């Protein structure tokens, strides 16, 4: 145990002896470098979720059919050895056979960009207005496509920022709902026992043997067509968490069953604690870290599920933007051969799911008091 603390000896042992559980978990977590790096990545990701407009360079809905399928304009930081960020300009040429406009990168012409520069106006968390953006072209009339554009000439970079907001929020909210359902129902099941336990256990078994993807599809298809994107969003999260809570419910029940017989629970009961106090103050803290670890591993599953549903056209629906909605643009192989950058939203999904999994694994190891 003292191996992870820099200083060895009695002083360190004392520190470990008096450290709270959370501090111990943090010490153990800090040792997983990959998990720490992923955690930093996730923090950045959720800053994007909070302020997508700050990162976006354009209005994600702005269409211009003449600027369809513009390739990726890579950011270059240095120009002739001096710090002067720019992106290469694009030139359009009409294909004589297909009569389609084909865009190409023209590295000889440079479009200047600035960091932390003014751009289109947006509202910070809906509170006050600002026009500060992370990246903005020096000439406000110039459009830049950092990650290319889609078939309607919408800027993919800006759309990914907004899609990330939706997809990551769905994951988080769906897991939060699952955790609440799992703790409440699992807790009741484990603490009350008897008939109630039987009913909840059968319900969990029933839900766990449901063919998830087909049933999710059927439920999403049953949503009224005239619902607003916000309503659809919440309906989808509820649908996703309907099955998600069962695993957690089982685990919470198991913990409650084991803890119910412990001496400290008996002591609390004899001391006259109310049921709620025993559950919340005495039993919950012993497995809270475990629940957090388990639910952080559930978030990536939710993100993949949302992306898949939206990709099939039965999840989040346009005009709402999610990473799955963006990937719908990549459904056609001919389009994909023409514009491979339409797969980039998928990379965002993979990397963020990877980060969630690594953090979750790190947390699980750190939360386990018997891990070495």
């Amino acid at each position: 145990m003292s191996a992870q603390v820099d200083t060895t000896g009695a002083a360190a042992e004392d520190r470990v002896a008096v450290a709270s559980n959370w501090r111990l978990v943090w010490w153990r977590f800090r040792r997983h470098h990959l998990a720490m790096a992923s955690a930093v990545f996730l923090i950045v990701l959720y800053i994007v979720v909070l302020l997508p407009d700050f990162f976006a360079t354009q209005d994600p809905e702005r269409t211009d059919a003449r600027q369809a399928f513009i390739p990726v304009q890579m950011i270059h930081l240095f120009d002739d050895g001096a710090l002067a960020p720019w992106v290469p300009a694009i030139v359009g040429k009409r294909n004589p056979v297909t009569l389609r406009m084909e865009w190409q990168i023209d590295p000889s012409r440079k479009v200047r960009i600035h960091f932390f520069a003014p751009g289109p106006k947006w509202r910070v968390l809906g509170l006050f207005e600002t026009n500060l953006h992370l990246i903005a072209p020096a000439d406000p009339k110039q459009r830049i496509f950092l990650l290319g554009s889609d078939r309607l000439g919408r800027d993919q970079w800006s759309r990914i920022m907004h899609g990330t907001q939706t997809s990551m929020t769905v994951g988080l909210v769906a897991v939060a709902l699952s955790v609440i359902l799992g703790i409440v129902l699992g807790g009741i099941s484990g603490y009350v026992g008897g008939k109630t336990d039987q009913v909840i256990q059968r319900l969990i078994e029933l839900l766990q043997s449901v063919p998830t993807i087909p049933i999710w599809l059927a439920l999403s298809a049953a949503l009224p067509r005239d619902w607003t994107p916000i309503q659809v969003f919440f309906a989808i999260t509820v649908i996703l968490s309907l099955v998600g809570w069962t695993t957690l419910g089982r685990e919470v029940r198991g913990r409650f069953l084991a803890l119910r017989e412990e001496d400290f629970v008996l002591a609390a009961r004899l001391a006259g604690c109310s049921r709620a106090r025993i559950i919340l103050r005495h039993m919950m803290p012993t497995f809270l870290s475990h629940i957090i670890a388990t639910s952080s591993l559930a978030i990536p599953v939710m993100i993949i599920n949302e992306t898949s549903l939206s990709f099939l056209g039965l999840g989040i629906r346009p005009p709402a933007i999610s990473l799955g909605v963006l990937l719908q643009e990549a459904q056609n192989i001919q389009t994909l051969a023409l514009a491979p950058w339409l797969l980039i939203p998928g990379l965002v999904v993979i990397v963020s799911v990877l980060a969630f999994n690594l953090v979750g694994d790190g947390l699980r190891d750190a939360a386990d008091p018997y891990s070495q």
Partner: protein
Amino acid sequence: MIRFILQRLALLPLLMVIYSFVIFAIMQAPPGDFLTAYVATLASSGSSISADQIQALRHDYGLDQPFIVQYGLWMKSLLQGNMGLSLEYQRPNVDLIGEQLGLTIALALFSFVLTWAIAVPAGIYSATHPRSIVDHALTVINYVGVATPNFMLALILMWVAFAYFDVSITGLYSPEFVDAPWSIARVLDLLAHIWLPAIVLGIAGTARLSRIMRANLLDELNKPYVVTARAKGMKEWRLVLRYPVRLAFNPLVSTIGWYLPALFSGSLIVATVMNLPNIGPLLLRALINQDMYLAGGILLIYSFLTILGTLLSDVLLALIDPRIRVEN
């Protein structure tokens, strides 16, 4: 043992009744019924139908009855093996589903076999050579494999094949075999095509299973009986395969319970992206077009396959693990 299987089998009809009720409720949930959609279809093709005829049809199909009665009618015809008529295809649903059910099951089972054939050796190798380069490489592949949505992998593979090798890897047959009658050549052609969707479908499961195998085997390898066997001079491979692997296998077998059903429902997405003849895309179309009896039938089949998968894993586990047999 037989009693145990019979008990589980007795539960099957009960579960199916519960599922069918829930599915019927979901199918009924969207506004309008399939006659409204039917009338819209007719109108879009230029023909029309009188209000009297609609009323007569509605009466024939029992759509003017209360929910419970409609459900009863549906169940009654289901028990007679009649799944109704598809609105979109104007053909019996039994035929539509039957045509593609075989390949749906074949794809899932093929993917299942492939998963085990890859995951078990990979897991054993990782556990017996911990921290080797291969072990680290497998760990990376595993993490990425779990993090990649099925459809994304399918898209990437299809794009690479199309853009760089100029081949289309959609479908399950070469063009000349699509409508051909069954023959040896057609089966071989199917086998030449099915492995790619099977890998796409199974990659996440493969990653997960080989991690489980690795972790279990690592636990077993440190136990005294392994040291004893090694001390008496047993050959290392013989020893590993003979004892610890067999023990590490049990938790793997219990994954069949969720893995087989996950393959059935996961094949829906892969089949849609790769354009495979599968009940998945059929369900998707049926849901979008409100072809409710077709969708309901397919959902029931999915539920049935799911229950069957769980049952299979319970029986297998009882067969290979005597402890479970004794408890029952």
